[in-house]
């Protein structure tokens, strides 16, 4: 059964989450860390069965990471951005591998690039970089230019 955007927003509001109407076909939902799994299970139960991907944003000024779980429904044709804020000092969040298997690789990637720990994910080994020893590279306080100059002598040959 196809639901339109308004009824989905209403459904989510009933669940007590904060919903933002972004664009046609796109809504954004702010959820709490503890509520994440329940919320995603609920979304999945009403037909949001495609996990587009997961990404993280480093809000360094606010001292928080924001994880965005992109979920799309093939029946309702609505894209939901589920946003979870976690503290930058203690970046721990439950894994969703049991819900969507491909989340494994997105979580591995985010762990590698942001240092966020996914509780319950058995394999957080690095996917792209080998033996990275600096701070995770996609954090805002990592300066890739300085790194490149230092390791590869980039500036000299500019």
């Amino acid at each position, binding site marked *: 059964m196809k639901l339109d955007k308004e009824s989905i927003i209403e459904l989510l509001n009933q669940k007590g989450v904060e919903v933002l109407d*972004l*664009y046609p*076909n*796109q809504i*954004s939902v702010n959820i709490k860390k503890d509520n994440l799994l329940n919320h995603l299970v609920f979304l999945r139960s009403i037909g949001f*069965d*495609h*996990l*587009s*991907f997961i*990404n*993280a*944003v*480093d809000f360094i000024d606010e001292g928080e990471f924001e994880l*965005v779980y*992109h979920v799309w429904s*093939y029946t309702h*044709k609505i*894209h939901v*951005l589920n946003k979870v804020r976690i503290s930058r000092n203690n970046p721990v969040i439950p894994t969703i591998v049991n819900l*969507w*298997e*491909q989340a*494994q*690789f*997105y979580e591995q990637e985010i762990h590698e*690039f942001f240092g966020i720990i996914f509780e319950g994910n058995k394999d957080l080994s*690095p*996917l*792209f*970089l*080998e033996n990275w020893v600096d701070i995770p*590279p*996609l954090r*805002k306080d*990592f300066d*890739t*230019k300085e790194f490149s100059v230092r390791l590869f002598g980039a500036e000299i040959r500019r």
Partner: protein
Amino acid sequence: MMDSPSYMLSKIAEKDNLTVYELFFGPNHPGMHGNFGYVLEMIGTEIVKVRPNAGHLHRGFEKLMEQKLWVQNIALVPRICVADPDPNEVAYCTAIEKILRVDIPDRAKFLRTITLEMSRLSSFLMGMGALAAAVGLYTAMNIMTADRDLILDLFEWLTGARVYHMFSIPGGVRNDLADGFVERLYKVLDHLEKRLIEYDKLLFENPIIHKRLKGLGYVSKEDAVKYGLTGPNLRASGNPYDVRVDDPYAAYPYLDVRVITQEGGDALTRAIQIRLEFEETINLIRRALKTMPEGEIRLNLGNLSALKVPKGEAYAKVESSKGEFGYYVVSDGGMKPYRVAVRGPSLPAGLLLAQKHLPKMKIDDVAAWMASLAICPPDIDK
């Protein structure tokens, strides 16, 4: 040095008196498309375990994009997928336009659509060629690559570059069609349609191809959605989903996009799916050329180098030849993006499905399996 027999080095364990050894399928392997690798643990010729070895192409795009101006990134994004670069530009520009809350002129939408579909044609030709090469049919690969060049020539005429076009910019496209371009494009499309008959005889109706690909890498209808497959791979499993129809962008709302689905879900179905979509793409370009309106080709957004995007975020997705290409763009109201995250279409197939499908498979089929899923390593690595 490397002189000691690699057999000794790669032997890792023994299981039921059989030696389990490691075989590197890639990154330096003729059957591997792009710089990517699977470390296969094998007994004899049968694979028992797979470890994907990604990251050879990792350039840190998402970090680099945070350091460049909004418009400078247009030069960066197409490099994420080499075979099919235009969806990147369009997705990135669409995301910016969503945050800016502007609507681009209709002609620009059509021009974007035409380049997207041309890019899809060239990518399909490359994908079919890769499949042909994976099963040893180099003649088909040769002819297809040569035909792909006809499209690249048109791209060169239109945008000035063969591979990375940088045609879409925030607010529209860079330039209009040249005189005579449309006629030439029609000619190329006619030529490709004629060639399709030859491809059918050579590749898609070849009994040996049918024998080899039938039943290889089967994905059921439910699994395709569950594993997050998109694009032709999803549709070959019987799911009628297409971003162009479900979440239309560019000029697709004005065009009647026919979604092709097939039941089957094995490598052969996926190969034929690409061939059917190739034909449909040719028709789609013809329709787009016919209905294309006259008018402006871009919005005036002022000096693009000084473009400031208001605070906000947007996710834009585009149906590329391999599936859903998504860009999540966050702006803090400055001259540069705060964060750009890229969803490449190959990740579920290249990393997850590899671990599901390759065990129990023989070494013979790895290259064909990979080509049939159109795995494009650069968009996994980013």
